[in-house]
């Protein structure tokens, strides 16, 4: 089709003011707080944060995998442009329509490749199920499609893999199977929730490379949820940094490493192990003191202020900072970005 370059800029997913809260007793724990972002085809967006930052909850909510109940409150919008071209709000879809979106328009892979596959079914039948749920296909055809996917993901001995059971495969292989399952219906958006965290380093690199290849081939958008900024540098075009349930910085991948706007982001960057020439011992990791506040007991003002090296009394602990543009395409949630960042006024 012509004009595909223009279409690229048009987002396929737009999240606006997403809120997820859990009632525990008479308190409400706000796990995700006014998160907004959008993603276009062929784009790779990284959502970065420590555990407890709300990044995984955001991913699950986009997938419609968090159910509203008396204890679970979700608001905001998750607008998805589906394959048919219609725009719908994932949060408001009835169950049946939601099932058509899952696996078909949006697919998801998870952190736990060891336990994300059903132990009682063969790999082939689990991938074939994903195909058959959205395509009218015979069992033989969907198994053939499963084989094709495994070949495409350069799984060695794909025939053998098809008839194996999850416990017979290594963690890296299982994650490949999960990816095959996710790609089976050619989704337009893939949410990868820490897909490499449980794997060892060489396998991590292989999986990242694989996802990049698939994206280049299919033009699929990827939301990459991770706590590892090293991975961000390898795959992401844009990065969303989350802290205590809110977005604290939104920045292009290049600028993220050049000039982070938020002290939290800068601290995260410093804690990255550098395998550089100076061979700094591991003890030199600049770990951030303290830990993410629990969503039930948030500090006043800037949520990061108790841990921040640039904390200024009566400013940082007074008002909650807004997300401000500090440079073109770069937003930051910090009262002091002008003082501490490398931004021309």
């Amino acid at each position, binding site marked *: 089709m012509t004009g595909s370059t223009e279409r690229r800029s048009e987002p396929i997913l737009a999240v606006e003011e997403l809120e997820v809260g859990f009632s525990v007793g008479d308190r409400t724990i706000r796990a995700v707080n006014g998160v907004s972002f959008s993603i276009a085809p062929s784009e790779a967006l990284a959502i970065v944060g420590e555990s407890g930052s709300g990044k995984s909850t955001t991913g699950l909510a986009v997938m419609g995998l968090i159910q509203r109940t008396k204890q679970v409150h979700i608001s905001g919008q998750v607008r998805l442009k589906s394959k048919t071209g219609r725009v719908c709000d994932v949060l408001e879809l009835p169950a049946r329509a939601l*099932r058509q979106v899952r696996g078909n328009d949006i697919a998801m892979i998870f952190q736990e490749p060891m*336990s994300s596959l059903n132990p*009682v079914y063969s790999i082939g039948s689990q991938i074939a199920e994903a195909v058959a*749920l959205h395509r009218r296909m015979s069992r033989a055809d969907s198994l053939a499609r499963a084989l094709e996917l495994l070949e495409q993901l350069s799984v060695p001995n794909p025939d053998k893999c098809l008839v194996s059971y999850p416990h017979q495969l290594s963690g890296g292989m299982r994650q490949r199977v999960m990816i095959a399952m*996710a790609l089976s219906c050619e989704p337009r958006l893939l949410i990868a929730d820490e897909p490499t965290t449980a794997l060892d380093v060489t396998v991590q690199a292989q999986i990242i490379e694989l996802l990049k290849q698939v994206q280049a081939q299919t033009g699929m958008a990827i939301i990459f949820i991770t706590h590892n900024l090293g991975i961000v540098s390898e795959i992401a075009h844009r990065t969303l940094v989350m802290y205590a349930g809110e977005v604290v910085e939104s920045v292009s991948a290049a600028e993220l490493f050049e000039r982070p706007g938020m002290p939290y982001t800068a601290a995260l960057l410093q804690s990255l192990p550098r395998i550089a020439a100076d061979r700094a011992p591991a003890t030199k990791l600049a770990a951030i003191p303290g830990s993410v506040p629990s969503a039930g007991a948030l500090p006043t003002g800037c949520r990061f202020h108790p841990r921040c090296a640039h904390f200024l009394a009566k400013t940082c602990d007074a008002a909650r900072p807004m997300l401000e543009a500090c440079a073109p395409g770069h937003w930051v949630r910090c009262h002091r970005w002008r003082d501490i960042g490398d931004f021309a006024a």
Partner: protein
Amino acid sequence: MMLRLVGQRLLYAIPTVFVLTALLFFSVTTILGSPASMMLGEDASPQAIAELNAQYGFDRPALEQYVDWLGRAMHADFGRSFTTREPVASAIAAALPVTLELAVLSIALAALAAVTLNSLPTARRVIRPLVVGANLVGIAMPNFVIGIALIFAFSVSLRWLPSTGWVPWSQGLSTHVRHLVMPVLTLSAYYFGAFSLVYRAELREAYRRFYIRTARAKGASETRVAFKHALPNAVLPVITFAGLSMGQLIGGAVVTETVFSMPGMGRLFVGAIAGRDFPVMLAIGMLVVFGVVIMNLITDLLYRLVNPQIRLG
């Protein structure tokens, strides 16, 4: 590998059967007194008892008697009943099919109902209170109380079903089934409660696993998640339990058969107990031991066969 496993299990099972039957034999023969005194009554003269003991070989050493008894038992010869003088083997041959049918139907019905009803995703809201209620009835109400309540409702009040008795297949299928409805319901009520308890605990565990989330992410419906993804991972303990229950079928059927006057193993056993009919007691006791050991073996093997993690190593 499977064959080696079967061999290994049999190696344990066979001595177990011998030890238990010996235990049964010695305790019954020594504690109950000599069979002859039992046959002749307590007032019989010592001389008459001694004569009869000699005639039946009851005066021999206990071990010799046990070996002799076991040897005959291997050839399905359990001697004759003291009370009816009928061969024990033929009494058992007549009673066993009745119990087998009752137990198989009840256990199958209970397992099917427990797994299906507890799996239904809507059950959480609509059916769950009913299922929980039925579970509690099955657990708290003794079998005979359920049976009598059913008889009161369906036979005495509504007059829909015959209250007691048993009619063989040959006298018409519908009469046979009509006599079987209440006994099967009674016996399955207990198993339903027990199976549900086990299955619900397993199901809760299965729903915590990440493959459930994967299935939902694929776009599977809640019904599909429940029956295709959670059920197979939660059902094994129910299969095990059902298998073990089959091994105990005589124990399970004792009360139900008594309530509904069914001519099965349970009632044969109760009759033997009441009449101190020592050969019948021993024969059924041995069958119980045998059934338990065999079903334990089969269940164990089945468990390995169903679970790919064990099957394929």
